[in-house]
């Protein structure tokens, strides 16, 4: 008898009997830290529900959503009209948080914070500025003892919404970048190493002296990596934080399109951080499984209320109130 019950317990564990509901989502690494936190908290509140989120990159999120292999996607780049046309089931964009993409670097021995301008960032990533003590970098950072070493650029090797935000910004402030490279989740990088996911880029920059990469703010903060302020369109050097990111979104919040697809890079505002972005959950309008349908709607409600309170703890700015109101209305469109 004892052996039988042991065997049954083993089989039950094996078959994963415990969770009543498992959802799978995939996509952006940009908000992965806050998403994982949310899904963990939500699981604590609802032990029977597990939302498994795989941070594979925005490109993967869009692709897997289109292929129908995941229940929802996530992306920092709003889907293009062409991508939307390929969907078999229409999907809705739900902004979740506001985040920032920061230039993080690894300069052993340099304690002073390095300031970046649109010109220097474009130059570095184009490969035109290839040494740290280049005149242009030095000019923006008079007190810093920049080494005479090559700048090792680190970019994304996978299809990335973070890449889109970064290249979107570079395209707006550098005509050369716009014509040579352009803005997308996957571009032909003029130079540099590729890391997989925000995690991979952060990991590579952390391990490689004299390197610079672009990551979502929380990756730099959690790993105690330095990141520099960027000069915005008003001429002020602004460091990414809750206030500067929220200010960047302020204008967009007032004029948010109905489908929530918008770019807020290089936003006007004295204290606005120029490389900010919304990030979206991509949810199908029609969900066959009634249980999953309920879970997703409930989660979205939770995300827009309690979830927003958690965002600041991980340096993500909460959504503006107008956006939250409109999104709550959009939840009703999911069937």
């Amino acid at each position, binding site marked *: 008898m004892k052996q039988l019950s042991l065997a049954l317990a083993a089989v039950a564990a094996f078959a994963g009997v415990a969770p009543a509901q498992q959802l799978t989502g995939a996509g952006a690494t940009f908000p992965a*830290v806050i998403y994982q936190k949310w899904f963990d908290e939500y699981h604590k509140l609802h032990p029977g529900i597990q939302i498994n989120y795989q941070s594979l990159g925005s490109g993967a999120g869009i692709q897997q959503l289109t292929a129908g292999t995941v229940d929802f996607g996530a992306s920092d780049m709003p889907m293009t009209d062409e991508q939307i046309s390929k969907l078999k089931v229409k999907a809705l964009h739900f902004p979740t948080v506001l985040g920032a993409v920061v230039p993080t670097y690894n300069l052993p021995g340099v304690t002073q914070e390095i300031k970046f301008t649109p010109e220097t960032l474009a130059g570095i990533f184009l490969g035109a500025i290839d040494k740290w003590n280049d005149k242009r970098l030095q000019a923006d950072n008079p007190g810093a003892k920049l080494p005479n070493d090559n700048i090792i650029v680190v970019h994304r090797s996978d299809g990335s919404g973070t890449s889109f935000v970064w290249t979107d910004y570079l395209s707006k402030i550098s005509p050369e970048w716009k014509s040579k490279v352009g803005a997308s989740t996957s571009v032909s990088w003029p130079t540099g190493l590729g890391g997989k996911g925000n995690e991979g880029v952060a990991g590579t920059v952390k391990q490689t002296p004299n390197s610079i990469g672009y990551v979502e703010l929380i990756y730099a903060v959690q790993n105690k990596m330095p990141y520099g302020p960027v000069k915005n369109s008003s001429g002020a050097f602004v460091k990414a934080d809750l206030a500067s990111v929220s200010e960047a979104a302020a204008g967009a919040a007032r004029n948010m399109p109905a489908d929530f697809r918008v770019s807020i890079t290089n936003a006007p505002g004295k204290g606005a951080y120029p490389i900010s972005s919304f990030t979206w959950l991509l949810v199908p309008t029609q969900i066959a499984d009634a249980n999953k349908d309920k879970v997703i709607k409930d989660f979205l409600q939770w995300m827009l209320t309690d979830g927003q309170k958690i965002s600041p703890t991980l340096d993500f700015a909460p959504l503006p109130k107008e956006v939250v109101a409109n999104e709550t209305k959009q939840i009703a469109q999911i069937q």
Partner: protein
Amino acid sequence: MHLRWRKTVNAVMLGFTGVCTVLTVSILFLILGYLLYYGASSLDWNFFTKLPKPPGELGGGMANAIVGSLEIVGVAALIGIPIGFVAGIYLAEYDDKTFAAWVRYVADLLNGVPSIVVGILAWTLVVVPMRHFSALSGSVALAFMLIPIVTRQTEQFLREVPMSLREGALALGASKWKMIATVAVPAGSKGILTGMILGVARISGESAPLLFTALNNQFWGGGLSQPTASLPVIIYTHAVAPYDDWHRQAWAAGLVLIALVLTANIAARMVLARGVSVPRG
């Protein structure tokens, strides 16, 4: 004088070969040493029982990856071992020139296919129709890798069983399949079992075929039809990430994985070396 030169060359070159050997053998010990050094301290109760925490938070473990690996490899073995075993019996026991030659060739071919390509196959066959990443697709991928190994090993060790044993059984009136089941297979069982153990050890370390089949999971996998965490995949994701805590856990997971794989290998080889279970001649 010329002789002295030749003698010097002799000493140097032979010494060089010794150095080569020392270098290559020491790599094994270096690998084990690093894993022990970095990983042993992280092997605590938490590691084996807790689920991973969200990125950036300390603590947590890899319990789901360990169980997930057991699940995926277990199902793969369930699929792959019977097929490989019986196919191997066919190759060894039934006299069939052309077809058997083809099967042998194809089995060796499949042995050489890169594991990522096997992943593509499993994705096409299981993930796409199911419209879901799943542990099952990962198991199918690993089973595809296991089958050729078990087939060839089974065949090889069955061939080493002397014909006299078989003929003896047949002479006593046993039918062919009875002879195979009660005489040939038991006689070759040590080697056959070794082949199975080595095959399972090999697939339990594979990461590439699971990347887009079983995917990954922060929670316990919800059965065969859900994405499931596995040790090799989680080592990969944690190694390339920036979090020091994740690195620590990756080392620990690496230590666990290598302990399992090496133990299986050493055990299998010792079993083999200890006994040919049949007297020769």
